């Protein structure tokens, strides 16, 4: 079968290709790919340019921190969707529900009885000594009983096609607005392909999010929920406004809120109004200067008192950073076994914890084969890609690891799977590496997985880094409702 758009497509040797196998579309995706492939490259280039202009006009942008002029850019994206077969996603969904259930129990435990530390399943000093562990929150039960209201879990697929969890984001995961906006564009540009493929919708996410937020309110009738943003200069500001708008909630900044008698209020043109649920998109260090940063003028003084009194729910709960700490990650499979008495459904990437003597000895001897990550950094920063690094960079990391082993973990570099991607400056389709971030909402009733997710793509040829701050883009993710025979 010859297809105009995919005619010259050559998958990367040794990487799992999402859409093609042996030069043919993977069977579940055949119908969708026939529709997509019927386009010529020049049709495609035109659609791509139109879609990018629409995003810019709508202001679907992120702010570039390094640019003092407050420049905004669109998050680069590729119109060619990433498809996931129904059976694949069903397994993923079960694995994510299991994982989030265990992580929630872990947080309740470490901020409560600490049974898992007594049982020595997770080393006590690794938890209590972590920057993400907030000792002052021990014994505080969150209103509504939920701690990980919104999670974004980063997954990759290895060369055998096995999903592996790369990291859990349990504090303020971002990106879901792009999932929804990318679908709006797909609907406009590929209505027939989307129809032929029978894809799960994603646009009900804000409704589910609003329901979840109401479900954890400390009052039964008519709770007021707000979205708390650091403001227009934050790189994810578009998403904050998007979520507030699509949920119909007020978007507030810290100075709009104040605490009186352990209750939270928002300042309005008609005087104070009570707030019951805060979906915060600010870092927890800036939630309450009375508690986290006495030197800071940012935040809402007294907020943590109101939280501890059970008068306001905060999503996600402060203190979650201990559960998505990169040094705790290697212990998640043991947590699942400990709390749920089940075998983990999802694989992880084998990880060396530099705090352990034997792991550290191995890591410093094998830096040329490993990816080293600082446990307290994100966004692709503080990272050593061993196989591509210079010997000077490796020597520097060796020194850093030996000086502060608690701060580092290392993993073998896993070959990321690839997906056909439009390369605008060459006008053709080529494979680029991708990951997947599904979103999980947890209400009082338990976790729910959005059937979709953010596919991030490393647009630079040969790159493994998908972060938007480092040349990454995104793709629409089509989760199929059923797989063709």
């Amino acid at each position: 079968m010859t297809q105009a758009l995919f005619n010259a497509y050559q998958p990367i040797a040794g990487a799992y290709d999402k859409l093609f196998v042996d030069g043919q579309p993977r069977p579940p995706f055949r119908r969708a790919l026939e529709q997509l492939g019927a386009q010529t490259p020049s049709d495609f280039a035109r659609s791509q340019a139109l879609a990018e202009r629409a995003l810019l006009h709508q202001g679907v942008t992120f702010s570039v921190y390094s640019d003092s002029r407050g420049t905004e850019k669109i998050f680069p994206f590729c119109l060619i969707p990433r498809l996931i077969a129904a059976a694949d996603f069903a397994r993923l969904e079960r694995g994510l529900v299991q994982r989030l259930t265990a992580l929630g129990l872990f947080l309740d435990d470490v901020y409560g009885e600490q049974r898992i530390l007594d049982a020595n399943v997770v080393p006590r000093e690794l938890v209590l000594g972590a920057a993400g562990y907030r000792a002052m929150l021990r014994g505080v039960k969150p209103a509504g009983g939920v701690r990980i209201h919104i999670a974004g879990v980063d997954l990759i697929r290895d060369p055998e096609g096995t999903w592996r969890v790369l990291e859990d984001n349990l504090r303020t995961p971002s990106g879901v607005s792009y999932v929804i906006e990318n679908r709006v564009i797909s609907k406009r540009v590929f209505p027939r392909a989307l129809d032929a493929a029978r894809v799960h919708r994603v646009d009900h996410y804000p409704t589910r999010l609003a329901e979840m937020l109401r479900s954890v309110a400390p009052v039964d009738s008519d709770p007021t929920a707000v979205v708390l943003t650091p403001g227009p200069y934050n790189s994810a500001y578009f998403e904050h406004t998007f979520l507030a708008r699509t949920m119909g909630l007020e978007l507030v900044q810290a100075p709009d809120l104040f605490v009186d008698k352990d209750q939270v209020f928002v300042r309005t043109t008609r005087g104070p109004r009570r707030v019951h649920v805060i979906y915060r998109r600010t870092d927890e260090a800036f939630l309450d200067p009375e508690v986290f940063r006495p030197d800071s003028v940012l935040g809402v003084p007294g907020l943590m008192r109101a939280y501890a009194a059970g008068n306001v729910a905060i999503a996600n709960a402060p203190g979650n950073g201990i559960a998505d700490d990169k040094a705790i990650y290697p212990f998640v499979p043991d947590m699942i076994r400990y709390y749920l008495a089940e075998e983990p459904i999802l694989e992880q990437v084998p990880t060396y914890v530099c705090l352990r003597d034997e792991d550290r000895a191995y890591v410093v001897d094998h830096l040329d084969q490993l990816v080293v990550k600082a446990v307290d950094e994100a966004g692709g920063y503080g990272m050593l890609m061993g196989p591509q690094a210079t010997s000077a960079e490796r020597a520097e990391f060796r020194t850093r690891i030996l000086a502060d082993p608690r701060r580092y973990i290392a993993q073998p570099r896993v070959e990321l799977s690839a997906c056909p991607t439009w390369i605008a400056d060459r006008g053709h389709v080529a494979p680029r590496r991708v990951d997947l971030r599904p979103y999980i909402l947890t209400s009082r009733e338990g976790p729910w997985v959005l059937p979709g997710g953010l596919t991030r793509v490393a647009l630079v040829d040969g790159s493994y880094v998908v972060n938007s701050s480092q040349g990454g883009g995104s793709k629409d993710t089509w989760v199929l409702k059923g797989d063709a025979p």
Partner: protein
Amino acid sequence: MIISRVADHCFWFGRYVERAESTARMLAATQSLALDADLEPHACWRPIVVVSGEEDQFRERLAGGKDDDPVWGDGERVQDFMTWDTESGVSIVRSVTGARWNARAIRDVVSLEAWESINELHLWLDDGGKGEYREHRDAFYRRVRSLTQLTLGLLRSTMLHDDSLDFMWLGVLLERVNQTARMLDVHHHAFTAISQRHEVVDTALWLSLMRALSGFEPFMKQNQGKVTSDAVARFLIGEGRFPRSVAYCVESAHDRLRAIRPPAERELPGGQTLERLRLLDEWVQARRRGPEPGESIHELLTHVVDETGAICVSLGKELLGYG
């Protein structure tokens, strides 16, 4: 009921959109006047700078500190200043940036369509607008006007008519009172000084002012072609059916504020601002046919401009969270 900070952004969003539109309209009308009337160039262009309130800045930065520098009559320099100067508080580019910045701070409040139209204007000024300005000046001003007018229209046709829209409209109306009053004041002063004996020039000047305020056709309808300085002043001050007259804007602003802060609800903040605006409304209504005996048009308009300024300050303190 809305968050005070949000009310502040709404108010300034309205003011900046209105300001961008009014500057574009004024520059287009003056350009046309400069081609028609036999006027000294500085008599055409200087009033524009004076109305904008940036006279001192223009004198210092462009006219070498002098009042007789030829730059005051240089239409290109004045237009550049009023369109692109990023330090002038009234230039089109500053107003559009300000409108867009405020709208972006309340993206969850401004309707998507209204946001897109102001964002499109902002992006265009940074890109295609520069060439359009050089090559098709009139089309440039038309585009600025049509996108700002589209924005204002979309606010009313796509947003909930609640407090946030009332604050935006309050911003639009108070900005407009200010613009009309200052333009009339400056032109009234300048025109009566230069053209006492040239009836044709006189008429051209007044009609140009009416065009700058989109009032040409309504005025002609109202006055059947009889153009005198008194008739123009009466129309722009007192014609309650003309949406840019002082009387109309003050009365409508008063209506908006009453919707935001009903007079009967005395426990709510905003009482002093409401009372001050009520008094101004009453004062202007008493002068719909012109100034009181012994009062000049200049005095009347100065009172309007000063009171509007004081009302904005009071509004900031009581309702917009300025402390």
